[in-house]
């Protein structure tokens, strides 16, 4: 009986020893040397894996930074400048400050301003609604209200406003990862500069139709009159295909264009109130 115990113990120990030797050599032979900095950077990244940086997740972002040993064109929208300052010392590079961005919804066709003409009774998905028809209010460029952007947002920074039928972006939560921009079939959402004191001015319309046609469906449509283009002294506004666009790099936030817009399609956000009321729409955005 006791000899059986000895046999078992000895044979198992031998097998264990042989396996250990094989494993030791295999581990040596196939050892992958990984830069410890990758782990270091990954540890301080937000781990949101949103893809806002343009890479497949946070670890991939860290790998690319270490591989290139530079922070050029690398930006994590979630962590922002503070994060880059932390990454900088790890790879021995100075981080370049970038202006924080935010997503803005460039459509103001609320139920009140762009009344619903037809009743859509199908699948609630913007992708599908866009393929099917021009939407409930008739504007072929405007927000469909299906909420694809809200579903795409991984930071809970968006919700659909039941009163207006438009998505609302919560400024504190939005990190400008761009998921909603990709989700919108009509490319209504744009990433723009957050601006000093979160103040920004943008044209809240992407309708390229002729003025009369656009105005028929929506009171606050850009009709391409060009008044803002003439008013702007900084050449920040361009007019193309009956649609004005404000370049946020050039815009100085002087607010002159807001005052001249005949359809109130230019929105100003987070500005202190003016002496005389200018737009009825700014209240909705704020």
């Amino acid at each position, binding site marked *: 009986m006791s000899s059986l115990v000895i046999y078992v113990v000895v044979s198992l120990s031998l097998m264990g020893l042989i396996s250990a030797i094989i494993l030791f050599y295999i581990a040596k032979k196939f050892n992958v040397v990984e830069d410890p900095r990758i782990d270091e950077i990954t540890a301080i990244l937000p781990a949101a894996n949103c893809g806002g940086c343009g890479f497949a997740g946070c670890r991939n972002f860290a790998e690319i930074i270490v591989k290139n040993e530079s922070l050029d064109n690398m930006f994590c929208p979630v962590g922002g400048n503070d994060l880059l300052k932390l990454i900088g010392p790890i790879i021995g590079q100075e981080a370049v400050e970038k202006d924080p961005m935010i997503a803005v919804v460039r459509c103001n066709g609320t139920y009140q301003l762009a009344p619903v003409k037809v009743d859509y009774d199908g699948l609630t998905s913007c*992708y599908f609604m866009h*393929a099917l028809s021009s939407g409930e209010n008739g504007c072929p460029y405007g927000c469909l209200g299906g909420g694809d952007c809200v579903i795409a947002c991984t930071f809970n920074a968006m919700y659909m406003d039941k009163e207006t039928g438009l998505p609302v972006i919560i400024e504190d939560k939005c990190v400008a990862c761009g998921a909603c921009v990709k989700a919108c079939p009509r490319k209504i959402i744009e990433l723009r500069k957050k601006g000093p004191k979160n103040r920004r001015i943008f044209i809240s319309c992407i309708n390229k139709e002729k003025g009369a046609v656009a105005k028929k469906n929506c009171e606050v449509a850009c009709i391409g009159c060009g008044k803002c283009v003439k008013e702007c002294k900084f050449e920040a506004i361009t007019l193309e295909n009956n649609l004005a666009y404000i370049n946020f790099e050039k815009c100085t936030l002087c607010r002159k264009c807001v005052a001249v817009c005949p359809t109130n399609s230019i929105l100003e956000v987070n500005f202190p109130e003016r002496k005389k009321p200018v737009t009825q729409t700014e209240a909705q955005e704020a």
Partner: protein
Amino acid sequence: MLLKTFKHGGVHPEENKRSEKSPIRTLKLPAIAIVQLSQNVGPPSEPIVNKGDKIQVGQLIAKGKAFISANIHAPVSGTVTKVDDAPDISGYRKKAIHIEVQGDEWMEGIDRTPDLKSEIGLSAQEIIQKIKESGIVGLGGAAFPTHVKLMVPEGKKANCLIINAVECEPYLTADHRVMLERGEELLVGTRILMKALGVDKAYIGIENNKPDAISHLANLLNGNNRIEVAPLKVKYPQGGEKQLIKAIINREVPSGKLPIDVGCVVQNVGTAVAVYEAVQKNKPLIDRVITVTGKSVSNPSNLLVRIGTPVSMLIEEAGGFPADASKVINGGPMMGKALNNLDVPVVKGMSGVLLMPENEARRAPVVNCIRCARCTTVCPMGLDPYLIAQISEIGKEEMAEKERVMDCIECGSCHFTCPAGRPLLDHIRKAKSKVGFLIRTRVK
């Protein structure tokens, strides 16, 4: 006698053919005709008229330049007021030619007499060329250019022609009336198509709910054994090309292949009559028969309408817009799409205008799938609609492709039969368009 039909799936919706006894009436000309430039499958045609041009009926006004495209002819005479965007049946604004109607002057050379011309003088090549020039597209609803279908690719051979007179969509009766009133022309058109394809056998597939049309055509044929009338069991979607081929000649079109791969070409009744008019009478495709119907429409009609007439005029002619109507559908109730604007012009592919009352138009509330597998039973293509819909919901296109989503013919049988009211077809269409995009990018 057992009637022929296709094997897998199918449903039998309420037929509601309210307008089948109403003879085809010619609708008066509109004040302004809007001729859309993208009326058929393929890229839009290019306009060759300018603002201010005087044009006559039948004059070429837009040319199809690509391989799959068709010419467009003036459906009315008058002055071109502008070439500009106008809302089309999709609800989006697309480029169109606006014509202010003045009188009704026809181009010289178009034979407008009602006499039947049964001698076919042209050769096969000349017939196809003539059809191409006349801008004829499939009038069943898909609007695929007919000449492209007739040009059999090298290495393949057609050995039979099927005339699709099934009209399996509920409500629609346009093809039925065409068969009754223009039977002789239909048969000559069929013979022209046979000559163009070089086949010596043609079948006319008619569902058994049109016994008058079956006996009428059988009488006209009078023992001609090259053309055969095939009565079919009433089952939707028998008018689908693949289902019709299976039903009549029992050949199965493989997944991803075309009817020509099994030696078969399918053409619609209306198309055959349009081919007759083009080849024998020199008349391009400028008008078509449209059924205007609905449960509450006071005078359901079959109207001969010029292309470019606003849909509102058709509804006016059928007794006006009923008070309880809430949904206007272009096409039949199963496959048609809702219109969101009644000023949109008639296009070549429009086979019916259906006005649905509120209670009928509302969708049933959606509840969870109860796994009854009815959608799988009725799918004529043998797909699993519930599964594809679920895959589409979670956005896995590759999986949907493996489940053969591209084989779906969008007949809507699954959605029709679903006791849980799930929007199966909507999800499948979404998956289909995403997979289609995937396939196109892969080729590049």
